[in-house]
């Protein structure tokens, strides 16, 4: 049985936009951009006959000269004294802790010749569990960022001398302390025991010092609610792996909410339909179409301003069943199709095995959620408040108060640690900071806040630092440096200790006795500090070194039962107010990659297409189709957003299918004005990427509210083309994704995947690599569409591993992105009630018919279902690209790989034209050493991240996914050296290694015991475009939604 779902990638495809139809005819957008390419060499295309002769003469001479040219003299500089654990050419791996955000995932850092080149999840970490998000992956590039300060800054002037700075700062601190002036350290959430101790040491020296936590994206609501309800101001630990029903009200827990990698690992554990195991059901109520919403089994559009109302009625349904007192909630607290009631029934049936969460920062909403989870008896099972999370601790009111105190001159000294409130909190900070007699920032770049501070004492990058962390109570993570300091920076903890005159002595330095280089690298005093802090628990060198080696150490206390003191009936007024909300809601959300904007200068994150909208290099107002129709919005128009007295004019916008009616969304984390050359810098003359939405944030009940009711959206005067990859590489409505419902699957495991195979023909003699190929290996991949959440971690991982260049916004508009793996996102309307009459028509026609039926009424555009499909070279056994290459640059290996040989390629692009999966990428330019692509490939520091085992491609050649052949070769060679059999070869591709959802499996089909061999036999396995018989080496597993029908 096959389904009749109509999939589409973007509105232009659905609406059959003429420009789109014209563009999709060509695999490549344009003819060769010869003028631009020649422009690289300072040559113009429009030349006359004399120029032609000149070039001709020059070329002949150049060729003649080149023939006499011997390779230039190259040097090799070996170590003077080689460290024992480094062998040039062999990578070392170290455990550490990701410092890209305070979630603190355990990571494993790959180091080649003393420079970190890749970060992946540490399987021993209880937070990352071996996966890592895109932001964490990309964080390595901030180590090699040219925007980093090379030296500390005192009053605007760089100085190399730390002792000078220390003297100036500590003298001032002493004066302030003597005068009993307030000293405030404003940091993001810190849960590192040693850092907290260094702050405590600082506070014991300066008695008026205090430490305030400010999280730009805060979880204030949850913390305050738990403080009132359970007497514990903390975020609980959520155990998605124990939940059979997951109900989320606007919480993007797979993308941005608290600890997305950990939650993804837990969530996916129950999402793979397996015989004898219950698949979990995920229901999402939300306004924006979030990444988490795209993965939900049932998604109900909801106005964020009415969330309290719906939570209230959900509470009531449950309270009724439990025989508890109900809250007076108006009748309107129900959504179309009685979805709240149905959800309540499902939840009640899964009591103790369910989980209800909310992304709201409103204390009242979180209290209702607490009440619901109490009714469902989830505490101790899917929620653990006794062993809570430490990942976010900021309470919004504290920061607001600090700003007031600073403005009124009540604070004498302020130290910013990993925070940038001028950008992310309030522009008033810039003036307020100037009122303090001492202001210090630990920022490693001259960011918005640091540039108004008197002193900048740049912190190390986390890959240069020692450290520890306690992301969850009792679960400790360790951080160790994997490179010596790139710049003259110092760990912030050491700055605090230096000013408190408590710098640890280097007497017990274990490296002191070693000669030469070790003398230079002699252990940081902070290493000794951490070691002495851990002396009680890890009381000898071996125990400490083991903890460092593993990256984790835990001592989790037993979970204690909770005592609930909450009373939801006190929330009646707030719920009633919420019911009265009218007009359009603006929902401000953190984008999956940029999050709070701290990594605003990271080109990988900007280039990565948003998991839902596939927009790169910008934020935008996401409009529901109904509103767009109302204001006559067309693609490429902009909108004006008016919130109270604040107006943002001409903000780029797009129609977002799935956006709840009467809501619009806008991402935070963009619009940096002092990030750097990539993210934008006023000082250096680089335009900001996107617009800053922070000024639109409103405050409610002392907390920052992610939504504002009653905004005005009007059409802007300007037009702006977003660089969106969604309809690039169009599949022309062909049948690429398969899905079925859980009920169908239970009856028939091949549900959705039992299409008759048609057109099985081939133009050549049948090749069978199983029989005729290498007896050792046959490489293949399987991707589970049920596990893939679309998070994009694989895309960044692939780009880092394979030296894929960043091309920038303009090139993406021209459909020239270079990523080897992309995640195709397909929309379909949730209610496919409109049946197409029996005759077989092409998919294109079906889509057209749906569209025609739409005239006038666009309300149903908020009901959208989504499938994510990672797409990369399918390594076809009968590859269409191989037959058309005139120079045999792309050929097949006996191990089943489709090989791309750059040095043979002459750039005809025939292969790209002939590829049915559109996965080949052409190097239109030389992206390295080219200042037109001013990202990281054009400077010596940024190039440090290049993987030395992979060629950096030059202009004019094709490239594509190689199945990480460098890793395959490495794995095979290791087995050969150790005399192991081919079945013992262990290879993980970069995308597989990064995936937090374990969606990608790679392996050897010749090994019958391998996971891949088993997945190939799975009833859900299908090959994309099987009917054209290219015999791809990548199988996908049918998407199963936990619903009755699809």
């Amino acid at each position: 049985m096959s389904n009749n779902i109509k999939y589409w990638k973007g509105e232009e495809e659905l609406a059959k936009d003429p420009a789109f139809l014209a563009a999709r005819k060509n695999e490549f957008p344009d003819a060769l951009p010869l003028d631009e390419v020649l422009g690289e060499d300072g040559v113009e295309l429009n030349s006359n006959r004399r120029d032609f002769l000149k070039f001709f003469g020059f070329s002949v001479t150049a060729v003649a000269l080149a023939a006499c040219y011997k390779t230039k003299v190259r040097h090799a500089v070996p170590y003077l004294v080689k460290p024992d654990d480094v062998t040039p050419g062999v990578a070392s791996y170290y455990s550490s802790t990701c410092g890209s955000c305070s979630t603190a995932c355990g990571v494993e850092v790959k180091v080649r010749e003393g420079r970190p080149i890749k970060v992946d999840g540490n399987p021993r970490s209880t937070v990352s569990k071996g996966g890592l998000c895109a932001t964490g992956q990309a964080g390595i590039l901030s180590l090699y960022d040219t925007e980093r300060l090379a030296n500390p800054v005192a009053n605007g002037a760089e100085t190399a001398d730390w002792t000078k700075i220390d003297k100036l700062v500590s003298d001032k601190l002493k004066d302030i302390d003597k005068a009993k002036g307030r000293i405030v350290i404003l940091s993001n959430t810190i849960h590192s025991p040693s850092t907290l101790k260094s702050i405590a040491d600082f506070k014991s020296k300066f008695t008026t010092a205090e430490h305030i936590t400010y999280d730009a994206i805060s979880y204030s609501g949850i913390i305050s609610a738990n403080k009132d309800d359970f007497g514990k101001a903390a975020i609980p630990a959520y155990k998605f792996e124990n939940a059979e029903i997951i109900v989320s009200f606007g919480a993007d827990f797979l993308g941005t909410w608290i600890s997305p990698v950990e939650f993804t690992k837990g969530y996916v554990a129950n999402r793979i339909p397996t015989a004898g195991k219950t698949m979990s059901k995920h229901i999402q109520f939300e306004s924006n179409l979030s990444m988490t919403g795209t993965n939900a089994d049932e998604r109900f559009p909801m106005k964020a301003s009415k969330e309290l109302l719906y939570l209230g009625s959900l509470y009531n349904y449950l309270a009724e069943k439990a025989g508890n007192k109900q809250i007076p909630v108006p009748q309107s607290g129900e959504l179309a199709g009685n979805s709240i009631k149905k959800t309540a029934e499902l939840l009640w049936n899964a009591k103790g095995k369910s989980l209800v969460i909310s992304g709201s920062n409103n204390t009242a909403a979180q209290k209702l959620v607490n009440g619901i989870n109490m009714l469902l008896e989830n505490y101790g099972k899917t929620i653990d408040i006794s062993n809570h999370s430490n990942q976010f601790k900021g309470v919004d009111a504290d920061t607001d108060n600090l700003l007031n105190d600073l403005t009124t001159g009540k604070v004498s000294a302020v130290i910013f640690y990993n925070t940038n409130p001028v950008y992310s909190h309030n522009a008033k900070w810039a003036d307020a900071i100037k009122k303090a007699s001492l202001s210090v920032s630990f920022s490693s770049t001259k960011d918005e806040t640091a540039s108004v501070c008197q002193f900048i004492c740049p912190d190390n990058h986390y890959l240069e630092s020692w450290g520890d962390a306690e992301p969850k109570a009792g679960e400790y993570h360790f951080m160790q440096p994997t490179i010596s300091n790139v710049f003259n920076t110092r760990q912030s903890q050491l700055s605090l200790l230096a000013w408190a005159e408590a710098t640890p002595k280097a007497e017990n330095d274990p490296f002191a006795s070693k000669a030469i280089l070790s003398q230079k690298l002699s252990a940081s005093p902070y290493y000794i500090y951490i070691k002495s802090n851990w002396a009680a628990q890890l009381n000898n060198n071996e125990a400490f070194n083991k903890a460092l080696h593993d990256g984790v150490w835990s001592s989790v206390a037993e979970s204690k039962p909770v005592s609930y003191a909450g009373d939801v009936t006190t929330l009646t007024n707030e719920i009633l107010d919420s019911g009265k909300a009218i007009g359009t809601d603006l929902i401000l959300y953190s984008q999956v990659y940029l999050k709070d904007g701290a990594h605003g200068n990271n080109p990988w994150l900007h280039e990565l297409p948003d998991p839902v909208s596939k927009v790169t290099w910008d934020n935008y107002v996401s409009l529901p189709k109904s509103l767009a129709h109302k204001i006559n919005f067309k693609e490429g128009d902009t909108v004006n957003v008016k919130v109270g007295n604040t107006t943002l004019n001409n903000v780029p916008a797009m129609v977002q299918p799935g956006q709840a009616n009467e809501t619009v969304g806008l991402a935070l984390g963009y619009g940096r004005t002092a990030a750097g050359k990539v993210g934008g810098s006023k000082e250096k003359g680089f335009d900001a990427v996107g617009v800053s939405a922070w000024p639109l944030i409103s405050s409610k009940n002392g907390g920052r509210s992610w939504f504002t009711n009653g905004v005005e959206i009007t059409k802007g005067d300007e037009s702006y083309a977003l660089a969106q990859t969604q309809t690039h590489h169009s599949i022309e409505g062909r049948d690429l994704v398969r899905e079925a419902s859980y009920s169908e699957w239970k009856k028939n495991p091949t549900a959705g995947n039992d299409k008759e195979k048609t057109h099985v023909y081939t133009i050549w003699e049948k090749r069978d690599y199983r029989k005729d190929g290498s007896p050792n290996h046959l490489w293949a991949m399987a991707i589970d569409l049920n596990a893939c959440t679309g998070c994009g971690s694989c895309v960044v991982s692939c780009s880092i591993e394979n030296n894929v260049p960043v091309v920038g916004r303009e090139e993406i508009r021209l459909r020239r992105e270079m990523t080897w793996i992309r995640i195709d996102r397909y929309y379909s309307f949730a209610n496919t009630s409109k049946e197409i009459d029996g005759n077989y028509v092409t998919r294109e026609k079906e889509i057209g018919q749906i569209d025609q039926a739409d005239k006038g009424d666009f309300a149903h555009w908020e009901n959208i279902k989504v499938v994510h499909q990672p797409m990369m070279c399918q390594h076809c056994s009968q590859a269409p690209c191989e037959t058309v290459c005139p120079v045999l640059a792309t050929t097949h290996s006996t191990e089943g790989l489709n090989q791309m040989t750059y040095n043979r390629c002459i750039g005809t692009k025939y292969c790209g034209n002939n590829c049915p999966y559109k996965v080949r990428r052409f190097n239109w330019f030389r992206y390295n050493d080219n200042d037109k692509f001013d990202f990281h490939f054009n400077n010596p520091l940024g190039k440090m991240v290049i993987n030395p085992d992979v060629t950096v491609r030059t202009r004019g050649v094709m490239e594509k996914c190689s199945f990480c052949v460098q890793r395959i070769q490495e794995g095979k060679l290791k087995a050969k050296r150790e005399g192991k059999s081919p079945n013992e070869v262990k290879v993980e591709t970069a995308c597989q290694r990064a995936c937090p959802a374990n969606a990608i499996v790679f392996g050897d089909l010749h090994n019958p015991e391998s996971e891949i061999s088993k997945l190939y036999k799975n009833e859900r396995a299908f090959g994309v475009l099987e009917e054209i018989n290219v015999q791809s080496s990548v199988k996908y597993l049918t998407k199963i939604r936990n619903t009755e029908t699809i």
Partner: protein
Amino acid sequence: MQRQMRTLVLAAAISLSVSLKAEFKASAEEGKKLYEANNCGSCHAMDKKVVGPALRGVTERRSEEWLIKWIRNNEAFRKSGDADANALYKEYGGAAMNIFENLSPDQVKNILEYIKTAPKPVAPKAAATVEGDSGKSDSNSLYIMLALIGIFVIVLIILGKVRNTLRRLAAEQDGTAEDNAKGSFIKGLMPAKLAKMNPTVLTVFTVVILGGIGFVWSYKFGITEVGVQKGYAPKQPIAYSHKLHAGDLKIDCKYCHIGVEESKSATIPSLNICMNCHKGVQKASTAEGDEISPEIAKIYKALDYNPEKIGAEAFGQNPKPIRWVRIHNLPDHAYFNHSQHVKVAGLACQTCHGPIEKMEVVQQWSSLQMGWCIDCHRNAGIDAANNNYYAALHEKAAKDLKDHKNKSQYFGPDGKVKITPAMNGGLECAKCHY
């Protein structure tokens, strides 16, 4: 009888003492041999501290008896509680001297005699510098000279032609021109048959022949010369001799090139490996005196090592890495892994690097062209029987041979049965290019 006996004893004593005296005279020479045979020079020099103290004048500083005890077994001597011995041990940072109980006290005396008579050093040579050669070909100036000569000859010919033409024109004007075609200088040089041919045909013919020769030459040049650095032997910053170390001293290649069995690069040795020996071995093997070899001095300079000092103190704070000139330069798009070839395939270094143990200056022995790689991948044999990884391949080959299937591929030109890398996919692009 008694007298006789006494005389005999006396005679014996005298002869003994005489013979002793005679041995003493030969001892300096004997001592030198012993000094060298026991490698005293690895740790000692005559006039300065190395690992151990300077030896000149040692017989004046210490008694002979003390020295014999120290040299033969310094450990026991120290344990016996001799204050001087223990002080000396402490002074040299607890670096114990080897035990030489194989030496008899007389032999020790010989060595001491040698030390007494050892020649004084000659004046030191100029200070050593650590500077690499730019590696540029030194024959550049010769080429320029040749090119200039060539241009000069061409200019002469052209001038000659111009002069001839002018002369003919002048003759025509004067009316003295002869009416046959004898005036053409080139035709005059040609055999009569050629001179009679149609000039157009002749020109085309000549151009085709010259062009053909030119093309063949440039094709061959392009294939075998451009970018090929076979024979490249640049001058290195330190005149390290593989002939001395690998050839004469027979040091295993892997002792210094430690990466060769586990890494893609064999690795150029880090200087701490040099220092394993060269802390002790400081002078050139050919040098007479004690002065540090200027080449070894470059190592010390690079490490900022002061041979006069001991232990960690000897290393200074200003090390300066050595910039060796790379000899083997593969292009970036070609991946080569030493461990695959040395550890797995068990190839000798000489297979690709040539008689390295005979090279005073290392040169690129093989062309490193792809054809050269492929040749070996087509013809070399894999030791499939002794590595579990190749078990399936080995099995397949055995089966094929038994079933007479594709049999010919397993026989090399020499008729021996073998499994080549090519049969294991060793010719596929992505084995080396990615």
